[in-house]
C-alpha cells in the first residue's frame, strides 16, 4: 500500500529546483553575515526589512517548505508502512510546515503593517 501525495516526476523536479535556490540563498546569507559591520538589533532589522532581502527571504521560505515537505515525505514513505500512521505523520508534517510558513510570513510582513 502506498500513499503518493504527488505523483511522477514533479516532486523530483521541485526538490532539485528548490535545492538550487537554497544553495544560492545560503551563499548570499553567509556573505551578508560576514560582511556586516555589526550584528545588532537595528542593523539586523534593517537587513531583513530591506525590500530585496524580504523578497529573497520570502522565496527562501517557500523553497525550504517545499524542499522539507518532499524530503520528509520520502523518509516517511520509506520507513512507515502502516497506512494510518503514515497519514497521521504526513498530516502532522504538513501542519508544522504550513504553520511555520505562515508564522514567517507574518514576521516578514510586519514591516509593511508597522
Amino acid at each position, binding site marked *: 500500500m502506498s500513499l503518493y501525495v504527488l505523483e511522477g516526476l514533479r516532486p523530483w523536479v521541485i526538490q*532539485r529546483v528548490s*535545492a*538550487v535556490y*537554497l*544553495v544560492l540563498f*545560503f551563499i548570499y546569507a*553567509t556573505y551578508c553575515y*560576514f560582511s556586516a559591520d555589526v550584528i*545588532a*538589533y*537595528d542593523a*539586523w*532589522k534593517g537587513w*531583513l526589512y530591506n525590500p530585496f532581502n524580504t523578497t529573497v527571504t520570502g522565496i527562501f521560505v517557500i523553497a*525550504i517548505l517545499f524542499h*522539507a515537505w518532499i*524530503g*520528509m515525505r520520502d*523518509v516517511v514513505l520509506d520507513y512507515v508502512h502502516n497506512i494510518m500512521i503514515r497519514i497521521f505523520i504526513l498530516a502532522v*508534517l504538513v501542519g*508544522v*510546515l504550513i*504553520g*511555520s510558513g505562515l*508564522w*514567517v510570513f507574518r*514576521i516578514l510582513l*510586519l514591516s509593511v503593517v508597522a
Partner: protein
Amino acid sequence: MLSQRQMTDNRPVYLNLIKIRLPLTGIVSFAHRISGVLLFLFIPFSVYLLDLSVQSAESFAAVKQLLDQPLMLAVQLLILWSIAHHFFAGIRFLLIDAEIGVEKSQARIGSWLVFLAEAIAILLIVVGVCS
C-alpha cells in the same frame, strides 16, 4: 512448489545495523537524510527565534543570550553540521543528476570531497563567528 512471492517472503533477513558496513557513498547518502530530518526539526525553533529577534531590542538581546548558553552552542554546532553536510552532499547529488561523478571511483572521490568541503566550511564559519 513455492510461489515467487513465498520464496522472497521466506528469505532470511539479517539486518544487524552495527555489522552493516556502508560504503563511503552510502554514509554520505544516509547522513544527508539524517541532516535533512534534523533541519526539519529545527524549523519551528528557528522561526520562534526569528520572531523574537525582530520584536524589540530587548528580545533580540534575549535571543543572543539564549544562543550563548553551552547547551545552545552544542545545538548550533549540530545545526551547522546539518546545514554543511546537507549543502555539500546535496550539491554532489545535483551533479550526479547531471551525470557528473557517477562512475565508481569518481563517486568515492566525490564523497571524500563532500566531507572535506563540509569540514573546511564548518571550521571557517566557527572561526569567523568566534573572531
